[in-house]
């Protein structure tokens, strides 16, 4: 493959820009004492001297916390799939895939722009044969996509439990099976990994094309109506039936059921999920009815993570009922107060139609109106995928994957290799395979496993490293700043533009000011107490009326939105699910600030102006 420079040298000559630059990758010092933990990541994700010539940015949108070694499988699988979709499947004209590196547990990524006009022309021809086919057949392909994903999920669910019986079951012997149980440990592990890699291919199968069609409409609106807000454009395209709204709807349904069945007294703030479940179990028929309804909701709708699904510890609601159960008393209180907690879908639809028609009317010519119609029609056709895929991929499938790995953790712990099943995530996927073979061998030979000591030392080292890295300030970007960011994937998925980078570069300069700027994601002005939530485990600290300040807002936190008064995030665009949820709840939100969690103190009073995209520090 050609080595494509990230900058177009011609353009650099024409427009000599300020020598703006972030620190070079080679100048990033691995925190003392964590060198071995850093070395545990595979060689192909380590920075090398030649990486100094390129621009990298910290992907805090997807990986806001230091990565456990095992969790890097998500980056591997995702970038492998994203890259093949861009480079080889749809042949995006101006960009190849995304390279990734890791330093101090933080994932940095860099684009691979195509700048040679001949090459762009060649790729354009290919792109139109491929992408246009998808656009033309979008609805059918998306239907088929869902079928494929459900099959993939069923496959993962069907992977057998791990078992190493003392003696091979007699029926296997009589059946002449010929293969002993230990072999399946390796087989299932490979299938688990293989399924995960495959899922990520499907994840990207339609994603860039979906975002692209949205961006076309977005750009048109920005040109035709230079002062239109991003959120208004998003509202014109947003769907209302996307799967990602469903989990929250299920909690509301269960809240209504609880009131109907006269069980509302059992749901009180401060009670744990287990305490509530125990008291319902004593409530006879009504209690049983509600618990049955709970089971209906759980499969599949509680397969949502409390995070973005990229970390093994972003457990699903099914694994940890704390979040849905903490939301129930609030909804129940609202129902009893006679409030309507239904999503006003018909009203939302009517409002959307009013916006679409209204902006159409404001256009200057029939020609523009015709172009507008074409663009919004395409955007509305493809957007359900952009909204819907996450539930299947990042949530449902990812839960199954990490839980299967957890089973291996338990197995390794049972065979003395790990002290705790969760420690498996401190091993790389290659080391896990070694440990599995250690267990297989031990079972075969009747000898003890051999890795306990080395794994124990490594795990301790890596656990400490994660703690150290979590406290480090990571540069938002590394290397020379490109003149323009022309990579549609980077602009669309990460919202990174040249203007953003200038803000990042000037970050310390305006650090004396009391304003933080970001994308205006949801309208309204609110003053309140900032609750800086640096990881999902801290969600419980949120009190009624707090302003959520986090690195990345997440749509599965939706039930939290009934509690908070506003949301602020470091990363995210105005079309993110978080922004959509904030708009639905009518909460002001400013996203993509780059620095909110670093500059806002926990407990500080702040003002969030969601229409202007400004957060003001008040004291």
């Amino acid at each position, binding site marked *: 493959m050609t080595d494509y420079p990230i900058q177009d040298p011609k353009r650099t000559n024409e427009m000599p820009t300020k020598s703006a630059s972030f620190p070079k990758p080679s100048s990033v010092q691995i925190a003392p004492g964590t060198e071995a933990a850093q070395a545990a990541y595979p060689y192909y994700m380590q920075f090398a001297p030649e990486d100094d010539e390129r621009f990298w940015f910290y992907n805090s949108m997807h990986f806001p916390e230091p990565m456990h070694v095992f969790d890097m499988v998500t980056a591997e699988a995702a970038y492998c799939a994203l890259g093949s979709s861009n480079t080889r499947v749809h042949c*995006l*004209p*101006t960009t190849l895939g995304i390279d990734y590196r890791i330093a101090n547990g933080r994932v940095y990524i860099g684009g691979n722009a195509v700048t040679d006009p001949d090459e*762009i022309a060649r790729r*354009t021809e290919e*792109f*139109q044969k491929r*992408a*246009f086919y998808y*656009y*033309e057949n979008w609805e059918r392909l998306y239907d088929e996509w869902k079928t494929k994903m459900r099959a993939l999920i069923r496959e993962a669910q069907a992977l057998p439990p791990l078992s190493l019986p003392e003696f091979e079951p007699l029926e296997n012997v009589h059946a002449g099976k010929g293969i002993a149980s230990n072999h399946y440990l390796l087989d299932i592990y490979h299938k688990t990994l293989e399924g995960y890699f495959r899922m990520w291919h499907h994840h990207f199968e339609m994603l860039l*094309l979906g975002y*692209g*069609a949205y*961006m*076309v409409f977005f*750009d*048109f609106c920005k*040109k*035709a*109506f*230079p*002062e*239109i*807000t991003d959120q*208004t454009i998003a509202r014109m395209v947003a769907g209302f039936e996307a799967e990602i709204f469903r989990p929250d709807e299920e909690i509301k349904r269960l809240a209504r059921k609880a009131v109907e069945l006269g069980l509302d007294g059992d749901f009180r703030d401060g009670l744990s999920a287990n305490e509530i479940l125990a008291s319902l179990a004593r409530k006879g028929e009504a209690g049983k009815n509600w618990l049955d309804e709970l089971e209906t909701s759980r499969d599949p709708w509680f397969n949502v993570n409390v995070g973005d699904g990229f970390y093994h510890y972003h457990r699903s609601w099914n694994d940890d009922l704390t979040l849905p159960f903490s939301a129930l008393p609030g909804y129940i209180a609202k129902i009893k107060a006679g409030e309507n907690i239904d999503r006003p879908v018909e009203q939302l639809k009517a409002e959307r139609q*009013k*916006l679409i028609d*209204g*902006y159409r009317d*404001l*256009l*200057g*010519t029939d*020609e*523009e109106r*015709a*172009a*507008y*119609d*074409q*663009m919004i*029609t*395409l955007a509305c056709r493809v957007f359900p995928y952009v909204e819907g895929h996450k539930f299947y991929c990042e949530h449902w499938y990812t839960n199954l994957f990490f839980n299967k790995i957890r089973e291996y953790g338990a197995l390794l712990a049972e065979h003395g290799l790990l002290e705790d099943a969760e420690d498996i995530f401190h091993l790389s996927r290659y080391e896990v395979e070694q440990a599995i073979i250690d267990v297989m061998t031990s079972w075969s030979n009747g000898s003890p496993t051999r890795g306990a000591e080395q794994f124990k030392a490594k795990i301790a080292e890596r656990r400490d490293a994660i703690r150290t890295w979590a406290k480090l300030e990571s540069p938002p970007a590394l290397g020379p700043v490109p003149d*323009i960011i*022309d990579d*549609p994937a980077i*602009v*669309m998925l990460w919202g990174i533009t040249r203007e953003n980078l200038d803000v990042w570069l000037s970050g310390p300069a305006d650090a004396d000011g009391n304003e933080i700027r970001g994308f*205006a994601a949801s*309208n309204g002005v609110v003053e309140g107490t900032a609750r800086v939530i640096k990881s999902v485990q801290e969600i419980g600290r949120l009190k009624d009326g707090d302003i959520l300040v986090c690195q990345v807002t997440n749509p599965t936190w939706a039930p939290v939105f009934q509690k908070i008064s506003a949301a602020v995030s470091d990363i995210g665009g105005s079309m993110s699910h978080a922004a959509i949820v904030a708009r639905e709840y009518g909460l002001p939100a400013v996203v993509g600030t780059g620095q909110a969690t670093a500059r806002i103190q926990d407990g500080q009073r702040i003002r969030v*102006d969601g*229409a*202007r995209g400004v957060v003001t520090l008040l004291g």
Partner: protein
Amino acid sequence: MVRGASLRFSAEARQLVESTDTISWFADIGLGDRPRVGGKGGSLGELMKAGIDVPPGFVVCTGAFEAFIRALDAEEPLRAPIEALDPNNLASVGAVTKAIRDRILRAAMPTDVEDEVQTAYAALCADAPNAPVAVRSSATTEDAEDASFAGLQDTYLWVIGGDDVSTMIRSCWASLYSVESVCYRRRHDFPEKNVAMAVVVQRMVDARTAGVMFTRSPTTGDRSVVTIEGAWGLGSAVVSGEVTPDRWVIAKLTDEITVRDISNKHIKQAPKKGGGVEDVELPDESARAPSLSDQELIKLKAIGQSAEKHYGRPQDIEWAVENGTGKLYLLQSRPETVWSSKEEAPVAKPQSDPMKHVMNIFGGRR
């Protein structure tokens, strides 16, 4: 004037005095009457037709002007010497027009005209005798839309009493005979008998807040937003640039207030006792407070939109919020000219295949 008293509508004044060829109440006129009431007068009448509140008033129609000039011309020729002028001979244009302007300012109006003006003024101020009014020229020809045409800028604010009203009307008329105006007419060989001017006499609004509003963004040309600029006190402070106004941008379709730039409005202009205007220093607290509430902004924006809708094109508007009552008035609405006159390339054209639009993104954004 009674401070805080709400302005009464000319509907009531009209019960006292009916519109004639000399005097026309705003409620009786519209854009179609421009030849006799001028652009400004027609526009104010038109706003009332659209159901928008404007401070009540009447137009001294071109008939009054013509009667006045005819009388003057009969005394001593006035039009002929002007038509004889060479626009390149500034010295003689200067001397002749100065003499004519002096005559206009000195001469009394024909009695019947003067009577009608005074009666109408008294009716306009029936609720508050000698209430202050604005006296503004209202040009009648298409050319008059051009700022180079004379008289357009002539506006006298806070005029009190029938005598002063009469004087200011004649001042407006005299402005038609400024050097610039006459040179312009001579260069274009414009017959003097077609020259006429109407004058608007309108109750002043004692403004708590006043300013301007654009139903198309003056900075970007965006048709989907209304930009409102306002400051404490009379609008003259904003128009003259003495005060940096607060600035808001409101989305037409969603009513979202997307920009709120609240400035330090250190002074305001207020009516002075006995007529005229004075600067009043403001304490820091009110200087930095928004001069309109959100509710007022949304209301004002809706009024701007109905003016735009009525005229069928974007408008530049002057407005005021009355002290005490909080009532919103439009003082003037003009078609937006800067962006409308630009030749705009379409933002996008329809494609034979809608899919081709995606190449705007995937084909590179440069």
